[in-house]
Each structure stands twice: as C-alpha cells, then as structure tokens.
C-alpha cells in the first residue's frame, strides 16, 4: 500500500492522506482504556467502541479512495493493511459480508499492551479492534457505521490464541 505521508514542520503534524496522526504508546492506550471502562455511570466499552468506530469511519474511506479501490475484498484487505501499518495489530476481515460475519486478529496492540503491563485478563479488551472492524465493514459495504455492533468473543489478552470479533447488523 502506497500512502501519501507528509510531515508539516510548521504545524508539527504527521499527515497520512491529509489526516493528522499522533503516536502513543501502550502505557497511554491501556491506561486510558482501563480508566474509561472503569468510569462509574458510563458504559465505557461502548463509548470507546463508538468513538473509535466513528473515527475510522472517517479515515478509512479516504484511504480506500486514495488507493482507487473497488470491490469489497480489495477494500477490506486495504483496511486491514492500514490498521497494521498504524500499529493496532493484524486483523483478518475477509470473512465479513453485508450481513455481518466474523473478523479474526492474530495480534493486537491493546491485548499486547495489557499483557505487557498487567498480565492475563478475565475479559476481552480490544475495543479499538471492535471499532475498527465496524468501520471497515461500513466502508466496504457502503453502510452507516452506527447500525453495526461488534462483539469480541475471544481475546489474546485472555490467553486465547487469536481475537475474534462477531459483526451483528
């Protein structure tokens, strides 16, 4: 995948296809994630899912457009590659269809971060992955990301060999 990357030295911004990206480490991401999911009177996992899904739903169509792609297989593959380039992990989206389906991650930033920082978890943690899967599905099938729910059924941070995400429409 060839992306237009540029560093605007006056603004101090790293841009990919005109979108401003910032680097954060697993300490930051896991601490923020854990803080949000444990916030009282807030469904933190849903909040993170929606925030990430809506953000990727803005950026993924621009990436797809920049690559001049069409067809759901090519689009899903490009979304997956972009996700990996950003460091979020490896996500196989190829089994998704317009009616839902399943995505599988063989590595995950949040899962690796949780394992490195706090060890094995009791519950799935990859809400960044959930949000991304929803946005990729919406991008590939031309749908509104808001109609898509994603449930994580397996998680590397729990000790599972892969992460699994079920898309419910």
């Amino acid at each position, binding site marked *: 995948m060839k992306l237009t*990357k540029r*560093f605007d*030295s006056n*603004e*101090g*911004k*790293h841009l*990919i296809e005109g*979108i*401003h*990206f*910032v*680097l*954060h*480490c*697993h*300490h*930051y*991401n896991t*601490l*923020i994630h854990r*803080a*949000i999911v444990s*916030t*009282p*009177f*807030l469904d933190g996992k849903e*909040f*993170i899912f929606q*925030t*990430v899904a*809506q*953000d*990727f739903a*803005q*950026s993924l169509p621009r990436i797809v457009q920049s690559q001049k792609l069409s067809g759901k297989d090519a689009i899903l593959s490009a979304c997956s590659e972009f*996700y*990996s*380039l*950003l*460091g*979020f*992990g*490896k*996500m196989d989206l190829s089994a998704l269809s317009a009616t839902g389906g399943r995505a599988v991650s*063989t*590595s995950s*930033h949040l899962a*690796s*971060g949780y394992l*490195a920082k706090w060890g094995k978890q009791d519950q799935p943690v990859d809400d*960044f992955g959930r949000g991304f899967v929803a946005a990729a599905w919406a991008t590939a099938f031309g749908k509104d990301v808001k109609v898509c729910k994603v449930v994580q059924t397996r998680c590397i941070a729990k000790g599972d060999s892969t992460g699994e995400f079920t898309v419910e429409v």
Partner: protein
Amino acid sequence: MAIDKKVIFNGVSQMQFVGNQKGLIDVFGVYLTSGSSTMYNNLSFELIRKLDPALIAEAETILTNAARVCGYNTFYGIQNSVEWEGLIAPMVDNDTDRLIASVEICNALGWARWELVDVVPGKKAVFRAHKGYEAELYVKKYGPSKRSVCYMMQGVASALNDLSYGGEYPSGIYAFETVETMCRAKGDPYCEFVTTRVE
C-alpha cells in the same frame, strides 16, 4: 557541545514508525500506535463532557497521568536507544541537555511545537506550545474552554523532567508536577506549562 535542535528535529521527524509483520510498532521498549488526533481527542474530551462535574478534576488527573507514564517509559526507551546514541548522545553534556533534546524529539514526533523558555535545572522548567493537537481541536469542535485542556502535554512535561532530574528509572517518576497555566483553548496566545519539583 550545545544541542543542535535542527539536527534532532530533522533526523527524528524523518523516522518511519510503521507496524511490523504482526502489525505492531515495537520500538523503544514500548508498543506504539499511530492514531488520528481526532480519535484521541474524542476519547479524552467526550469522556470529560459525559462526566458529572464533580468527577472532572479526577478524570483530568487520570488523563494527565496516562500521558506521564507514556512519556516516561517511551522517552526512557528513546534515551537508551541506538538512535539516541548515534544522533543525540554526542551533544548531551548534562541533564538539561537531555531535557532540551527530548523536547525537540516531541516536536519531531508531532505532539506539538514546543519551546523550553526557562529552566532552573532540577527545580523548574517552563514550556510553551504554539501548536498542539489538543487545544487546537478542542476549540475547533467545542469553542473556547474555561479550563486548560492539554492533558497529554502536561503529562509529558512532567515525564521529561522526571527522566532528566528525578533520579534512577523507574523510581524517578512523579518527582515533578506540571500545571498548564495558559492554554490556547482558553483564548491564550500559547499554551504554557510550568513544571516544578514535588516537595
């Protein structure tokens, strides 16, 4: 030897941080992600806006602490990397040089456009940011704020002082505290961060 900020800025800003075969950016002893600034801002600011006002100060502390822990660990890795050894270490004579060089790395990483305007080594440092994604996007989305909003930069300012003057890693963390005394989100011309040693 003085710190050549331009060499650091140009050298570090050209580094490519992309996922490996596992889709992970495994560098400097941490895993990095490159996320959109809007995503990170929405995670912070929308969280704050959903909270009961009585919980806001605590949430701000949590967000700032996440950035401090991130900055402390990531910059420890950076300061012990081969890249630092090759590019920056020959310019560093003392702890303050290390702080100045680290600020320039922050600029090259795209977190802000920072300058260190005053340093009393080991006691106090004053940073100014003329750019920075937090204040900028806050104003764009919500308009002026009554509170300072640069939680990330506040935490990183503490972390860099912790690393330079706080003592051995990892026990040197929390040696300094930072207050964002001015913020562009409040209408100030720049964001200013005053970092002092915890008594």
